[in-house]
């Protein structure tokens, strides 16, 4: 088991390296192949009054005049040994792991990622708990009460949840609950857990519910389908024949079998969202990794995009590793020897 984990972690380093090369190439290499010059790339980071000299100086300062492999090497070197940045009146040292400096805000990326990660983690942890509990519960009950008013009603709501985008439900929810009824926090509110757990939960309640509404719907439908299939399996009939209580049959045998695909999707979803719940963070004006990435994309701020991409990749890899390990706990058939 230990060797398996180490092997997977080593692979994750390889994957992240490949990811960084791909992202770097998309932003630096492909435009050059398409006819852009270092000056035209630098033109994105100067004001409208910039002279050709200013543009050239900017290209030089951003390192765009170097060949792309050299630029990548400088970036990679910064990750392991740190880098230095000339801010005009002095030089700032960016300690390892230095993922670069924002072209726009003139800030090192890594501390900003660390600063924003708690927001995204808080958002995803709360929302995922809600959608997992609500989605799986509704899915199980719907499957057991197939065809009833509850089943139809729950699946109807689930369909609405899947269909409605967060930027729509989020704004409606803010307008109604925060600005009309004033029972939830307005957009842009985040209180760190360490400061006040109660206010932390209050500040994130609406984003949690909105994000969970979308995902719970998928999980309810997935769990329902899985339960419907599992409950017709022979081993369920056997369990009932042995005289096991129905509760034990459903939870220990039925649900356990139906959970495997749910767990797979859960791992992927949580991993992806930890890398940045872009739309939710943007809608609720939460300064998490997703909004950081969005800002980077809007302003062509490559170091930001590169940093968030690597963090997102890391989370996806780790989440999948955890899920793979949990498979063995839930389903003995895939347990590692």
């Amino acid at each position, binding site marked *: 088991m230990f060797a398996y984990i180490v092997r997977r972690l080593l692979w994750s380093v390889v994957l992240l390296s490949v990811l960084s090369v791909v992202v770097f190439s998309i932003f630096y290499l492909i435009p050059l192949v398409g006819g852009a010059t270092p000056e*035209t790339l630098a*033109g994105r980071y100067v004001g409208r009054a910039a002279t050709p000299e200013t*543009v050239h100086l900017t290209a030089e300062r951003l390192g765009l005049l170097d060949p792309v492999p050299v630029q990548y090497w400088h970036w990679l070197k910064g990750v392991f040994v740190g880098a230095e940045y000339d801010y005009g009146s002095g030089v*700032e040292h960016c300690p390892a792991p230095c993922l670069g400096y924002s072209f726009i*805000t003139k800030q090192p990326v890594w501390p900003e990622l660390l600063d924003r990660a708690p927001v995204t983690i808080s958002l995803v942890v709360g929302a995922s708990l809600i959608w997992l509990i609500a989605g799986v519960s509704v899915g199980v009950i719907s499957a057991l009460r197939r065809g009833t008013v509850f089943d139809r009603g729950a699946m109807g709501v689930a*369909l609405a949840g899947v269909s409605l985008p967060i930027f729509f439900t989020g704004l*409606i929810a803010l*307008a109604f609950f925060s600005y009309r009824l004033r029972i939830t926090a307005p*957009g842009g509110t985040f209180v760190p857990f360490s400061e006040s757990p109660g206010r932390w939960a209050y500040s994130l309640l609406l984003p949690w519910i909105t994000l969970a509404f979308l995902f719970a719907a998928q999980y309810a439908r997935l769990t329902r389908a899985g339960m419907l299939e599992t409950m017709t399996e022979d081993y369920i009939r056997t369990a009932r024949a042995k005289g096991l209580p129905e509760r034990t049959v459903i939870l220990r045998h039925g649900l356990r079998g139906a959970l495997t695909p749910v767990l797979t999707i859960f791992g992927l979803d949580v991993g992806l969202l930890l890398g940045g719940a872009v739309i939710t963070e943007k809608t609720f*004006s939460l300064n998490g990794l997703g909004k950081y990435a969005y800002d980077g994309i809007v302003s062509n701020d490559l170091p930001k995009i590169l940093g968030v991409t690597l963090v997102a990749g890391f989370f996806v890899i780790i989440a999948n590793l955890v899920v793979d390990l949990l498979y063995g706990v839930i389903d003995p058939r895939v347990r590692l020897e």
Partner: protein
Amino acid sequence: MNHSRSVRARGLAAVGVSAALLLAACGGGGGSGGNENPGAQSSQAGFNAGSTSVVNPSDKKGGTLKFANEGDWDTLDPGETYYAYSWNFARLYGRSLMMFKSAPGKEGNQLVPDLAEAPGQASDNAKTWTYKLRKGVKFDDGTEVTSADVKYAVLRSTDKQTFPNGPAYWDALLNLPSGYKGPYKSPNMNTDSAIETPDESTIVFHLKQPFAAFDYLGQQPDTMPVPKDKDTGAKYRNSIVSTGPYKFADLQPGKSFNLVRNDQWDPATDPNRKALPDRIEVSLNVNADDIDNRIISGDLDVAVTALGVQPAAQSRVLQDPTLKENADNPLGVRLWYTSINPTVPPLNNIECRKAVEYAMDRTSYQTAYGGQFAGGDLATTILPPSVPGYQAYDLYPDGQDHKGDLDAAKKSLEACGQPNGFQTNIAYRSERPKEKATAEAFQQALARVGIQLTLKPYPQGDYFAQYAGLPPYVVKNKLGLALNGWAADWPDGFGFLSQIVDSRVIRPAGGSSNMSVRIPEVDQMLDKALTELDTDKRNQDWGAIDKRVMEEAVIYPGVYSKSLLVRSKNATNIFVTDAYGEYDYLGLGAQK
């Protein structure tokens, strides 16, 4: 069976959405502006009252104003910031030599001395400008401001490697020594040829050429003093030393910052600022739709970028009489226009260019930009009405309905030798739906007289540098028309016209905003205006330049931009200044 369930579910979802929309619609409107101030006038003020008068006037001090920005601030460093809203806001924490008067409407265009005691004194044919500084102005650390601090602030802004985004007027105009790269890289170079500080309260600027409108340069935030020992180059944006009535507190880059009272600010040295609120809180990167909802509900006071409400809120505001009564629709200092390139045949013939002027449906231009309220007013000149020097005229009348004069267009085509029309291309920025809609409007309108347009979208990042602003590319790819837009750095003929009608700013390597105006006579007129020290006469010169350019039919003016702004329920002293086409952030107060 499945179909039936699906339909029912969709029906349920539709009911839910409708209910939610209804609730949302109810969510904002209530009240007549929440006006609890006995002296307030906002409930009677009416639509657009803030564009010309003070709404909810009050001298009450205290309270908190809440601002939000849908993006990040370009930079708070006065030496580099280059957005109108930021210059408007910077007056809260910094004092430049001159400033725009904090007053409604056209009065806001008036320059008044701020850090300086009086406007600049010109000598040497407007090549030398002298200012005397007020006594007793201090930084927020208690140090007295001297002329050396102003000189240092201006010089540091010329370091374009450190501050690539800021305006470049000082670099172009100051008589700086050859090879000077700013105080960081050329610390020991003598710069007295450009700026002298004979004593602690006198500063003298030496220019390479006459510049009669120098006081406008004096109002730029890059003349706000910077203490050399506290300057941290590109990082100074996060540790600004204030000279205005407010100083920074709790600045979190990319997230938020607050302004609190600067106890070193002495109102006796400052006749221009009321400094009413105790505190100003600014949130960054806030969802634009959420900003609208929060202002309407009273949770927020100002959308600082003043770009106008989003389409969702726009319909609410215009349809709800109560909301509309508390909204303003000011003219900006911006023109959306189209360049008509005389380098692309047959547009090298003025009659063919006139045919374009006559044939276009101007109302479709306005519609493409969002209509009367969000788009702007129909334009017939280059200078917008809010810029001093504007003269109302229409050289190419397009009928009472403004949908084009097709007879005049056909006559021009005949005179051009193209009676059946011709074919050319129209360039626009692919990321801008409004420009695409405008290009399509041109296509449809001009087709009525046989002018066939092919749409050519280009990425906006390289639009001027690689495509529509690159002269050889324009000719080779027959870009007869190219969509464009311009906002003045300051509301003055030079600030508006110099970069878009002076042929000398066109660079063979591309990158200029001037894509079509190459009139030597206009260049001379610009030079002459810059030596005219009489403001009224100079303004007349700008108007004459405007008309001369339009006579050549190389620009099609589309709309003078407007934005739909909602007044805060909490704010007092609300008015729009023509200097920025925004609420005057210096004058605002707070009820609570």
